[in-house]
């Protein structure tokens, strides 16, 4: 399929689809709310978790104390960043599956119906 016809189809679909109505529907609003509730706190959390390390190592030296043998707290914290990333990865995938369900429902019930 060539690009132009692709755009054309989209344009014609746009004329038909009432996105404003969908955006105002309760099921869509629920999806947005659920997404926000999940993404915003976790994003704030990982940014804080991430920046704490350079801030603490730059302005303080208490993390140079040994935690286990010759491994200091700074290294433990650094490795914890990796663990945090992987945990958030798993959590995100799990949670996204439920968002997929919701958005598929919206597509089925509202968007496809208009075509």
């Amino acid at each position, binding site marked *: 399929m*060539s*690009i*132009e016809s*692709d*755009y054309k189809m*989209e344009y014609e*679909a*746009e004329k038909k*689809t009432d*996105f*404003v109505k*969908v*955006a*105002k529907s309760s099921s*869509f609003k629920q*999806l*947005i709310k659920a*997404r926000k509730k999940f*993404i915003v706190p*976790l*994003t704030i959390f*990982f*940014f804080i978790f*991430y*920046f704490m*390390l*350079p*801030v603490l*190592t*730059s*302005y303080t*030296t208490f*993390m*140079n104390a040994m935690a*286990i*043998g*010759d*491994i*200091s707290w*700074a*290294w433990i914290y*650094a*490795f914890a*960043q*990796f663990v945090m*990333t*992987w945990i*958030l*990865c798993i959590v*995100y*995938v799990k949670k*996204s599956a439920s968002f*997929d369900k919701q*958005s*598929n429902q*919206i*597509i089925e019930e509202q*968007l496809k119906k208009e075509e």
Partner: protein
Amino acid sequence: MNLTVIVLFLIIVLATLIITYYAAKRTQTTGDFYTAGGGLTGWQNGLAIAGDYLSAASFLGIAGAIALYGFDGFFYSIGFLIAYLVVMFLVAEPLRNLGKYTIADMINARFDAKKVRGAAALSTITIVIFYMIAQLVGAGALIQLLFGIDYWIAVLIVGVMMTIYVLFGGMTATSWVQIIKAVLLMIGTLIIAFLVFQRFDFNIMHMFSEVKTATSHGADYLNPGLQYTVPLDTISLMLALVLGTAGLPHILMRFFTVKNAKMARTSVVTATWVVGIFYILTVFLGFGAAAFVGESQILAANPAGNMAAPLLAEALGGDFLFSFVSAVAFATILAVVAGLVLSGASAFAHDIYGQIIKKGKASDRQQMLAARYASLGVSVFSILLALMAQTMNVAFLVSLAFCVAASANLPVILYTIYWRRFNTTGAITAMFLGLLSALILVSMSPNVFSPTEGAAIFVGDPIFPLTNPAIISVPLGFIGGYLGTILSKDQDIERYAEVKVRANTGYRGS
């Protein structure tokens, strides 16, 4: 210079050319050229993203930085990894749902303004050029060291290779070169890490106690603050690293090679696991090099420490492993520069020529030709620049690319997806303020002006004290977008409703 190295290099060159040959047969349309027809699976794309991301800066640069500066070198690894959470949580899926080939497409899902597309294309080209020079300079240095050939010949070899992949094989060839490179790089890194660990009796505690006495820094080697003594500079660098990835055009372009947002998600998750494992292993590479190669030898081979990983391979596994790791480093650079050429070419051919000049009315054949000419142009231009930039510090150039990506692209991307009031004026002010402030502040920074002769490009006192301006230029990008939006009247709530529905449901994503 030995035979094994030459044979391994030739194998890599041959293998990539075979891939290109088969990919060329499948590259019929513009869609094939830019996005491999959207036919990659999430897994494949995840590996390709890792292959696109883990550049010479990651493999050679970080290993060297940890070898020379201990903990401070590891900062790069952490920043480069956490950046993936930003991509995963905020950017990947909406981007896939809204865009077609480029970042500019995504922004244009909201604004049909040529100016916005032009500004996005401009920032893409700027980022690509900085990144590309860094890779080519690194490649030139590596090949020069291995084969003892002149720097300019080395750059030309890499330049010609990348041009061939992109020109003939487009995104299909580029993707497979990146996938193979990611696998090779992981194998090479795992082997070295295993051998290092073996030398430390498979005991982490033992490893830490050993390196405590291995370097001239003594116990300080394991503490932060060896390389970064200015707190604000450290934080600024960390900001650029964590926010830059979500604005890097060649990484974001990879999300258009899969069918839908769900696959984009699988891609980013796969990439995060691969990249995370790799960055954990950089500790073994760095510590190993510090303990078994030694500071003086690393510095003698390259003052920035870039040869630490290959030298460590030699110390642990002799000639063959050294050759293998050098070949992997070569493949690493090839895969990254091919991805860069492609995203630079897409900005010229798709955004500027196809959408702005031809208003989206170019035939598929015209678009393909434009894409190929643009690839050739971008390649030639970067090769010429790289030939002039032999003495530039590779890590500095890469962190600069990250800074521009974080300042010029990320604010616009986030506003486009999440801010209802955002408008055309805001998009342009955000991009220009972010881009210009990053470039201007860097040109006044210690990397450009240094009181000591030869330490930077010019001799003199730096006007701006930080080496990485992200802590100033990123907020400026966001502020620029905010002010531009509220000071101009235009807004289109209906259009945003559409963008919001599309971004969140994936309905009629292109």
